[in-house]
């Protein structure tokens, strides 16, 4: 585009040269016309003096219009030779020429709406999500103000059976990226490629090579390029585990020497990146089967508690949705203290409620109690009992205990006195 001003300059130069040439030609024409006029005047003088000797006299129209030279006639649009054309004839011809009116301006108005050509993002990753809901936890940045607390709240998890899910990475088309899943529990990385491993049969000592995807030692990552759709889907299969496992998910920055001339991928400021503490990586938690135990708290009164009930359940399951139990469990806890005991003042009528359960430090790690129909009693033979039913709701994520506060429910007679 920049050549236009130059072009104008060039045209300007050409125009100046052209004007100069035209001026030279004009002078030549005028000189020729004067010469012709002089010859004609001399010829007329020699013949009969029809024309005045002085060419300045008898010129048509006293307005400065030159009708006495060839150039003057040409300028008037008359092409007759001056030598043989009389002033009367020139006058007659001029009277036939139409006088042009003043020229009005014709306006051409240009209208347009111009904008910068939008330049799409390049080498930029926009997001890291999963196709399925509730797979991993993103760091909660509100927690980061307090170093004593972890920046995660356990909201999402997968169970002990493992899970197949898909990671979705969106970004600008043709952006290269590297994604890694790190098993924090055993320091292994997820491999999207099948890796050979040697399996030795303990009985026969025979070795066989097994190829599989999964977690392996040594840094591994998924190397991808964002397609035209702007989103790449990456399948992941988390294997089963009988114990709790913590996985970290994030992008791996590409070393500049690996870029082959391409620009470094921009992961923004909030996407998780390995080799850096900020922002923190995404966290995927695999929880094993959980349980809830209902019992009486240990105290000097209750050393041999019988009837403790342990309910096995998936972490975070809704026990009250169980068709078989509806979350309702029969409870029969008892112990036989050495000292003579009776119901305490806080449970004088034997009816128990949530106040008689020891509060857990972390409420969300305890199984929810929806209802209880429990009676505490002390028999004549000094056997302390809690009998009845308890209805449970959402279970704890990890193994938990519902502890009835023995010391709050029962008391020694000595305390009463």
């Amino acid at each position: 585009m920049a050549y236009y001003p130059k072009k104008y300059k060039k045209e300007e130069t050409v125009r100046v040269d052209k004007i100069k040439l035209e001026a030279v030609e004009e002078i030549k024409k005028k000189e020729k016309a004067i010469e012709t006029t002089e010859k004609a005047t001399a010829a007329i003088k020699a013949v009969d003096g029809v024309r005045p000797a002085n060419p300045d006299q008898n010129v048509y129209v006293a307005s400065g219009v030159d009708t006495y030279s060839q150039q003057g006639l040409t300028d008037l649009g008359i092409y007759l030779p001056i030598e043989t054309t009389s002033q009367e004839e020139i006058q007659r011809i001029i009277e036939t020429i139409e006088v042009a009116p003043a020229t009005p301006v014709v306006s051409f108005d240009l209208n347009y709406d111009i904008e910068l050509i939008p330049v799409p993002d390049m080498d930029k990753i926009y997001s890291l999500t999963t196709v399925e809901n509730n797979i991993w936890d993103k760091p909660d940045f509100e927690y980061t103000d307090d170093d004593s607390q972890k920046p995660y709240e356990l909201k999402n998890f997968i169970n002990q059976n493992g899970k197949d899910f898909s990671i979705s990475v969106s970004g600008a088309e043709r952006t290269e990226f590297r994604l890694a899943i790190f098993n924090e529990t055993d320091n292994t990385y997820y491999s999207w490629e099948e890796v050979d491993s040697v399996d030795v049969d303990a009985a026969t000592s025979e070795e066989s090579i097994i190829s599989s995807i999964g977690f392996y030692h040594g840094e591994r990552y998924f190397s991808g390029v964002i397609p035209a759709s702007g989103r790449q889907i990456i399948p992941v299969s988390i294997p089963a585990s009988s114990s709790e496992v913590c996985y970290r998910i994030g992008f791996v920055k590409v070393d500049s020497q690996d870029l082959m001339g391409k620009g470094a991928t921009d992961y923004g400021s909030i996407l998780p990146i390995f080799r850096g503490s900020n922002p923190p990586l995404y966290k995927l938690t695999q929880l094993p089967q959980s349980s809830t135990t209902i019992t009486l708290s240990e105290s000097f009164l209750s050393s041999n508690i019988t009837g403790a009930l342990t309910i096995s359940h998936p972490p975070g399951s809704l026990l009250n949705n169980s068709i078989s139990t509806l979350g309702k469990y029969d409870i029969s806890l008892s112990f036989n203290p050495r000292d003579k005991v009776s119901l305490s003042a806080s449970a004088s009528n034997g009816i128990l409620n949530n106040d008689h359960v020891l509060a857990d430090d972390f409420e969300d790690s305890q199984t929810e109690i929806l209802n209880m129909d429990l009676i505490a009693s002390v028999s004549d033979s000094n056997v302390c009992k809690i009998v009845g039913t308890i209805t449970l709701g959402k279970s704890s994520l990890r193994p938990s205990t519902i502890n009835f506060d023995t010391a709050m429910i029962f008391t020694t007679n000595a305390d009463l006195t």
Partner: protein
Amino acid sequence: MANYTITRHTENIHAYGCTQFSTNQIEGQTATNGGPLDSTIVWDIKADQGFSISIDDFSFTGASSMNVPATIPASTSWENLPSPILFAQMVQISTVLIRVTLYLSPDPTQPGFNFGNSFVMPGTDINTVVAIEGCAKIAGHSMRLWFNEPTGNNTITEITINPNLEKRLLQEGEGDGGLKSHEVVGTLPPQALDKVASSSGDYLMSYVVVAESGYRYKSVPTLTINSKLYNVESFTQLTPSEYKEGENNITGVRFEIYKK
């Protein structure tokens, strides 16, 4: 409508009949230059108001054009005309006047007119029909065009005048935007009647509008004119997108401007 009139160029020595196109002659008179039977009959073809005429557009029906050296003023010479006319000449006197001279005797002073017999008036009247064909054109007129553009809007404009009109039209302005970004002034040549008010008209100039590098137009730029005498055809310039295959950006437009 012919848009011109033909009259006879009268002279005092002639004795005209019932119209100026007839003269009374005596039997036996011979056509001679300045004699009683004048050897030349002179007609004037004069364009009507607003029109112009050119010898290139006029001819004698059935006559043959002669190949003679160019003259000043410009002229055309003819032979094989109806008897007793030997030759004829059309001279371009001005843009609105053509002088037609019919020769009844040879004239050695005119190239190619030096043979044949001079006309002698017989005992009976002679009536000769000379047919002239030709069209007048709309007279050329002066024009003054202003091209008004938005200012400072990442656009480059350029006007290229029809090479055939470069001696008649002058362009000024650098296209920097604003009122009168470009001005074109000058006088248009006569225009053929079949082009007058036609949709295309006579091509005058190109007005090129180009977006600067990195810019595009949201829609095709438009050119509005406050006159019905001019016609504009636009040709959009599309540039393939660097970023999206199959997508084009509007990066310019060329307006071809015609005089109706």
